[in-house]
């Protein structure tokens, strides 16, 4: 806390000495923070550092055990979310939580719709106010349209409009970019900056350090529930932030050199109507093939076809030189393909199964051909993989839902390793997990490639794709727009292709781009 310079500006939001305990866990210990009107203040830290607990305290979800909250110098109490709203504290959560069957305007004004005569909701007034709000944000959205079918990014913007509809004094954004593509992130940032310039105090919670540098004025780091540092962003480097977050310097993205072997999986002119067209590529043993592109460019759709979830409409898939038909995930599994899905809660894990039950689920028939499950054999096998991937757990009988996000992801990977695959497809494997766990996932993936697996690595985190991949396929609107070898891969080159720029206009020798989280020279 000694790093905090006394500020000449008046603090809009001050938090003094907040502590919060949950049973045996001290989630927050005597933390202090201030956010000034007209600044974007980053709050960073690993999972479990206490960021979300603080956000929930400010949102009125939790009540702190000790400490004070001041708004414009006056002490306030936030016993519940309604009080937070009344005080002008608006929170935008990571996943938009809107009512899909209501209109955009209804969602924005859900809590306090404009009233007409006799107290009935004035629909015209509501539309008008929503339009005004969107105009103010410079967003083009039809206030009368239903929310269902809108992109994640548009839904995120509706959440922000909703937050600003109550004249927010403090806007808290809790990892708002987790499911956005790069240009959607840019649009969001423009709006956040505009909000800041109107004098709102913005608290921006994020895992992505490049975003913190791009957007924020000051940053505060929490570690293990304690305040580590608050400093102007100009005085910090990526390496500094990472060191503050994990307590020491770490090397990001440790992709090791591996001998590239023969082609394991070949795809020729693969198409799926409405998703992607004429996609051809090969993955070799020991190779990490990156799939980059904007959300909706067809990355996940290709992975789903390769894993037998969706059927291709044309084209050929070859494994080890022989054409294969992958009619179901179980067929893909038998053929030696494994898929770590994008949404690990929905598709990757049975969260109220134990770690062991999750790890063995795909291989039960293979493991126990006589139907009877031998618990001890199962546990031994699961323990082997859990140890190999360093899953932090009290034992493989622990329920998966009690694990942190990073450890859950390791269980998903362990589950697929247990199937002994030849090709591993990873779809956003580090989304929503903290830096420490992210580094470990990268290490695991790198080791797997070195052991001779062919890996398809899908990620929206550009620095990550650049650092991990031997080759990058860039998709744009369902087609391969570019194939970039590791030596020539830069953020600009990939973004150019991903946004559909003509290849001829590419700058041939792009200099190294601005160092984001992927710089990793710590």
């Amino acid at each position, binding site marked *: 806390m000694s790093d905090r310079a006394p500020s000449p500006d008046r603090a809009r939001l001050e938090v003094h000495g907040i502590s*919060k305990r*949950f*049973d*045996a*866990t001290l*989630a927050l210990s005597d933390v202090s923070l201030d956010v000034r009107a007209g600044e974007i203040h980053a709050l960073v830290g*690993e*999972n*479990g550092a206490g960021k*979300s607990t603080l956000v*929930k305290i400010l949102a009125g*979800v939790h009540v702190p055990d000790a400490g004070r909250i001041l708004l414009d110098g006056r002490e306030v109490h936030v016993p519940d979310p309604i009080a937070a709203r009344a005080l002008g504290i608006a929170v935008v*959560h990571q996943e938009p*939580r809107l009512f899909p069957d209501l209109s955009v305007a209804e969602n924005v004004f859900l809590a306090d719709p404009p009233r007409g005569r006799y107290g009935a909701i004035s629909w015209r007034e509501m539309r008008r106010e929503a339009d005004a709000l969107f105009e103010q944000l410079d967003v083009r959205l039809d206030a009368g349209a239903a929310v269902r079918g809108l992109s994640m990014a548009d839904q995120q913007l509706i959440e922000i409009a909703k937050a600003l509809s109550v004249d927010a004094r403090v806007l808290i954004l809790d990892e708002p970019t987790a499911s956005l593509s790069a240009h959607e992130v840019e649009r969001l940032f423009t709006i956040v900056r505009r909000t800041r310039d109107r004098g709102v105090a913005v608290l921006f919670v994020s895992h992505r350090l490049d975003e913190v540098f791009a957007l924020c004025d000051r940053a505060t780091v929490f570690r*293990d529930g304690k305040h580590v540092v608050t400093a102007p962003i100009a005085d910090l480097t990526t390496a500094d932030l990472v060191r503050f977050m*994990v*307590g*020491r310097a*770490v*090397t990001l993205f440790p992709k090791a050199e591996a001998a590239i072997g023969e082609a394991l999986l070949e795809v020729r002119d693969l198409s799926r109507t409405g998703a992607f067209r004429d996609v051809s590529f090969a993955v070799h043993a020991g190779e990490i093939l990156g799939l980059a592109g904007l959300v909706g460019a067809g990355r996940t759709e290709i992975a789903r076809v390769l*894993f037998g*979830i969706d059927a291709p409409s044309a084209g050929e898939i070859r494994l080890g030189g022989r054409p294969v038909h992958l009619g*179901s*995930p*179980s067929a893909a*599994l038998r053929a030696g393909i494994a*898929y770590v*899905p994008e949404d690990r*809660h*929905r*598709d*990757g*894990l*049975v*969260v*109220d*199964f134990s770690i062991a039950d999750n790890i063995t*689920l*795909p291989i*039960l028939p293979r*493991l126990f051909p006589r*139907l*009877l*499950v031998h618990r001890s054999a199962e546990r031994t096998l699961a323990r082997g993989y859990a140890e190999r991937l*360093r899953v*932090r757990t*009290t034992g493989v009988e*622990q*329920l998966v*839902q*009690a694990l*942190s*996000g990073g450890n859950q992801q390791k269980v998903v990977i362990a*589950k697929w390793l247990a199937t002994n695959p030849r090709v591993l497809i990873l779809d956003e494997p580090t989304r929503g*997990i*903290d830096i*420490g*766990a992210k580094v*470990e996932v990268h*290490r695991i993936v790198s080791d797997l490639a070195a052991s001779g697996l062919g890996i398809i690595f899908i990620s929206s985190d550009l620095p990550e794709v650049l650092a991990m991949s031997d080759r990058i396929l860039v998709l744009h609107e369902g087609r391969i727009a570019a194939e970039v070898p590791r030596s020539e891969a830069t953020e600009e080159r990939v973004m150019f292709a991903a946004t559909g720029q003509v290849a001829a206009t590419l700058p041939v020798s792009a200099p190294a781009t601005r160092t984001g989280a992927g710089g990793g020279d710590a």
Partner: protein
Amino acid sequence: MSEERAAVAAEQPAVPSALARRRAPLAALARWELLLLLIIVILTWAGTQISKYFLTGANFANLTSAVMEVAIMALPSTLIIIAAEIDLSVESMLGLSSAVLGFLWAAGVPLQLDIGIVLVVGALGGLLNGLLVARAGLPSLVVTLGTLALFRGLAQVILGTNAISSFPAWFTTFGFDSIPGTPVPWTLVVFAVLAAAFWYVTHATWVGRQIFAVGKNKDAARYSGVDVATLKTALFVVSGIIAALAGVILTARFSSARADNGTGLTLTVVTIVLLGGVDINGGKGTIPGVILAVFTIAALQNAMRLAGVSSEYQAVAIGLLLIVSVTAPYFARQARLVSDRVRGGRHPPATAVDPGEVIP
């Protein structure tokens, strides 16, 4: 390098309290089964107060054989509900089975062959349910509501309002009598064998594990290579076969094949499954719990009959029991939430938590 990474991992906090809470459902289930045992003991005591005949071997035979059809149908229904589906058509399949059996017997086909044909009819009816639910993706509630009417209608087409009796003695003896020298009805032996088989499959084999996985998260199960559609289809086929078998047993017990046999039994089957502690939302339940629920219902019905409670009020009691079975776990969960809130601050709904972060 690797030590450094291990240390990074070591910094992620453990979550002891959350784990302790997650273990609770297992313990709660054991408590649920204990509760059922306690209810059986109380009902037995009440039965002896009502009638000195309650604890006799003859009454035991009566009490059990009266519920054996619903008891065996409850076994596959348990698995279907654990897989987050439901089969409402069982009582009509029972009726169709009885009608086909009577029709064939009256037409002079040997009874052994009739029984075989009836079981095939059950399998086909179950296959129809299974294909519509698992392949066409229709909700099982609607599909089996449709076949509930369809199968009963077919039964009436086949047999009309006729009643076929005059079955051979070995058949009616099987349906009605006990193993000589014991109070154990033959039909209870059938239930015992089936219950053991279902117990084994559900709790000892990976097929059971897959059924639970499908009920808890069918997407994750599918992504893990579980053939969800085939598994569900198989469950409905088994349910159809068992319902047909129940039709055979009921026909033998009544010595009468009628198209309206078994009307209303689906309610009792579902009541038994839910009373046995199976979660109507899928993913949770045990065969032992359902077996205990069978005897709870049997003792309750028998005690009410001995006490002279009219059949209308018996139906009221079963309906109330169904509602209590569904709501009791809900209220227990609410109570636990309230006590958590008092102890450790408020827990927001699971969906409101950053999925990456487990610490409350």
